[in-house]
């Protein structure tokens, strides 16, 4: 019981919501929804934007925001795709090059934000144009296809019925949960996000922490780019542009405080699961347009904000009485 209490309240709420939803979906659409194939598709789809949401989420925890996730992912996909097209270039090397590219993009964001002190929103607003521009330039403005079979096969591989992409997502989620929750660096990200000035006076190297955070975000986005390269067999400079807003939305739904300092990786992961299931569930109704998803997300975002707001208010009142 005590364990349950110390668990992040938001994660607890989201988990309950997830199971409640599964129950409703199972009862109403058990035959067409609770199918392995549906879950496999979901696993593949959510991995990409789920990862970007984690990247954006940690930046929001650090007190900023990363609007460039999607474009970093596209750039990384294009870099990997172009390298793989060259005969004789090993696939693993292309993958590493893509991940390095992601980290470099992130580090560039970090440099703009921590060294040049450009507000994160503006810095990544500018850099996403830049990354997109570079993608257009190196890909010649068209989609990069012709991916070696050996790599694109990864998009359809399953391990015990679980898509490999989802396993990658899961692995990164676990690693990041540990990183944010248990390591010194992670703890410092939370502290810098709460109050950068206090952090400086407490001997935290803000520049290092912020650069690291954005680098990590870039790296994770790079992984997302690689996953989508495998899934759709191509990469393009303007692929998935609507994901940017979705990522922020998921992060906030998952309990990340837009002002920084609070939020958890498991929360983001569960928010991704809920939203993907919701939209897949809606897909099982043939006469409901897929676009409804947008509305539901929007309502969910604002609804969750309002619920958190009310609960937080009560909590503060309770804590004030305790001391």
């Amino acid at each position: 019981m005590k364990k349950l209490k110390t668990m992040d309240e938001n994660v607890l709420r989201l988990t309950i919501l997830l199971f409640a939803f599964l129950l409703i979906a199972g009862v109403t659409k058990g035959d067409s929804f609770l199918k392995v194939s549906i879950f496999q598709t979901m696993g593949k789809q959510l991995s990409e934007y789920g990862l970007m949401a984690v990247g954006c989420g940690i930046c929001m925890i650090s007190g900023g925001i990363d609007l460039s996730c999607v474009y970093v992912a596209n750039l990384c996909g294009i870099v990997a795709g172009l390298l793989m097209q060259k005969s004789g270039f090993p696939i693993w090397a292309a993958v590493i090059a893509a991940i390095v590219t992601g980290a470099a993009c992130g580090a560039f964001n970090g440099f703009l934000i921590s060294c040049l002190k450009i507000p994160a929103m503006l810095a990544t607003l500018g850099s996403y144009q830049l990354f997109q521009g570079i993608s257009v330039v190196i890909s010649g403005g068209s989609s990069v296809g012709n991916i070696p079979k050996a790599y694109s096969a990864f998009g359809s591989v399953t391990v015990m019925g679980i898509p490999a992409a989802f396993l990658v997502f899961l692995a990164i989620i676990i690693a990041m949960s540990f990183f944010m929750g248990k390591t010194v660096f992670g703890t410092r990200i939370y502290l810098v996000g709460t109050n950068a000035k206090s952090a400086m006076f407490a001997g935290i190297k803000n520049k290092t922490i912020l650069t690291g955070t954005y680098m990590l975000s870039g790296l994770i986005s790079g992984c997302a780019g690689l996953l989508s390269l495998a899934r759709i067999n191509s990469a393009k400079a303007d692929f998935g542009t609507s994901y940017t807003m979705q990522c922020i939305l998921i992060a906030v739904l998952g309990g990340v405080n837009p002002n920084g300092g609070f939020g958890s990786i498991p929360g983001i992961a569960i928010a991704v699961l809920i939203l993907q299931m919701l939209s897949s569930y809606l897909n099982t109704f043939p006469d409901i347009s897929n676009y409804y998803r947008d509305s539901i997300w929007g309502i969910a975002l604002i609804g969750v904000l309002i619920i958190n707001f009310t609960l937080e208010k009560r909590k503060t009142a309770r804590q004030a009485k305790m001391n």
Partner: protein
Amino acid sequence: MKNLMNKLIKQTEFWVFMIIIVLALLIQARSGAFFANNNIVDIMRSMICPALYAVCALLAFVSTGPDVSFPLIAALSSYLAIVITYGTGYDGPWFVVYLIGMFFGALMGALNGFIIVKYKFPSLIVTLGTSSLFSGILLGAFEAERMELPDTLQRFGSMNLLTVSNEKTGLGSALPMTFLILIVVYLIAYAVLNFTMVGRGVYAIGGDEISAERAGFDVKKIRFGIFVINGMIAAVAGLCYSVMSMKYLPTEFAGGEMVVIAAIVLGGARLTGGVGTLKGCLLGTLLLTMVTNSLILAGISVYWQKVFIGGIIIIGTAIPAIQYFLGGSRGKKVKGGEAA
């Protein structure tokens, strides 16, 4: 005179203006076609919609924070206006269609305003959420698709304020009537922001919300009003966009918000609120429009467009930081944490 110079140098608008001049001269030098009448008219034409959006972005930024919902408000409200025009078979003057659009825009803006004022959530997140909601309504509930415009708007769209043709190249260009709408919106906005107490209130609440409340400004009403008006301006922009492309294109709206925000920030709007002018808005929009429209004239491939825009935004936003470093090294302002 020297005083005036000093004052100018301190203004961001002045620097943006200088960059515009330099860029224009460079393009002219390389292509000889920048100052051609058709190019100028083309740029003016391309500026109409972004410049209208820029007013929305400015009002939100100065008073509250970023608003990213205007493209979807534009899309949904202009859709509703057009559908209602078709439904009723209305064929009177064009501005009635605009008024219908503005009505719906105001409703959507009111939703933004209500949530932001009531709960004090960050405006970025709220408008993100409502954008998503509006997008779902537009494409999901209404299943909006591209369509022709009603006759009244078609007639309005085919009216031109001025047509020019370049004698050398034979290329022509026309400035649509919507340009007048842009001018009217800017004039009204300028008058309200500078000569009414409500307009000053927009700056006051952006400067210090609590002080504004104590001074007697109705902070909630002003903030709510701003979002309602933003909705209305967005609706106007949406209809202008449709009129200028002679078609309603539901998926062409989303995604424009970030460049517009970039434009007003380049024009000197401060992210923390309270600072930003319409002049800066126009200049910032002009600069980015020039980059999108005219780089090709200078022989730079369109592929490089985004790289340039990104570069300009980064350099533009880094200027305060660079100024700070230059000022800081003289050891003028060292207090507390600012030293590091």
